[in-house]
């Protein structure tokens, strides 16, 4: 029942902080984080796991760590 999904986040990000949070959250949810690229205006992630946990991942990342302001969080493709 595992899926692979690509996500895109836009906003004002602190790359190191957002990346650390993304890794932390993927691990907390037991998801495989296959790819992660973070810049100041945008981040992209590819993960694999059950659909509901992928949803929980994007939900947490839509808020993000305190020092990042996320304006959009979308699944791609």
């Amino acid at each position: 029942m595992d899926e692979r999904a690509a996500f895109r986040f836009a906003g004002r990000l602190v790359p190191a902080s957002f990346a650390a949070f993304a890794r932390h959250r993927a691990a907390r949810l037991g998801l495989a984080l296959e790819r992660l690229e973070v810049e100041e205006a945008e981040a992209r992630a590819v993960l694999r796991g059950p659909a509901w946990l992928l949803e929980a991942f994007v939900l947490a990342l839509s808020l993000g760590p305190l020092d990042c302001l996320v304006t959009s969080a979308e699944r791609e493709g």
Partner: protein
Amino acid sequence: MRTRDRVALDEWYAVASADELGPAPWPTRLLGEDITLARTPAGLAAHDAAGAPLPLRERYGLVFTTLGAPRGEIVEIAEAVEPDRRFVPCGWTLLRASGLRVVENFLDMAHFPYVHADILGAEPRTEVAPYRVEFRREADELWARGCRFWQPRAAATDTTGTMMEIDYRVPSPFVVMLYRVAPSQPHRRDCIALFIQPMEATLCRAVPLMWLADDISTHTAMLHFEQAIFLQDRVIVENQRPLALPLDPRAEIPTRADSSSVAYRRWLKEKGLRFGTAEWTGA
């Protein structure tokens, strides 16, 4: 001491029920500041800790004031002017919790079968179906629409279960409302609004108001129903750790059912509101 959070200061806050005020000074606290209200022969008056007068409004039977310069007016509630509705104002409750946690709790449905067991929800009907979150930019409000939850007894008159449909509305950081189908009049919706007075970062007062299309149950029954539910929620918000609302989700695990809670925190973060949040170390 008055908070330095400008975003929190620039809002209207309900601080008393109009019929509670008499000529004797009524002291209370708002955003860390001790204020005083009174009803003088010349009308309602409010003063801050230094004795400077504060702006006042009276709406929905409540007295509102502000310590700053609100950009908008007090929330418009259309149901309040519909003549055939029953207006049920509940009493004020003091809560040792952040007012933001109280809003978050109001938006949450997944707790119905546990905190309000056999009233607003019951095992095993615990599933929270997906719903839509809307950031309404023009009105600067947050909505959660198309929420559905199975309730064994959603109102005092209900004796069989129904799939309740609810919309939630957050018109300002410390005010939250819901609209739900009226049990006895399925083509209309009841409206419940919760006005929160943030006194300190983790101390607040709150008052529920209801505008009901329901025409069967007694005023007292509705009042008791709502008060019981509110007191059950108080046990929760007073016992969350931290008491203040975390804006950083690292120590929590939101799932899809928590979408409105996450959206609410995003909205607060965008606004720059800090009073009552866990990460705010200032006053």
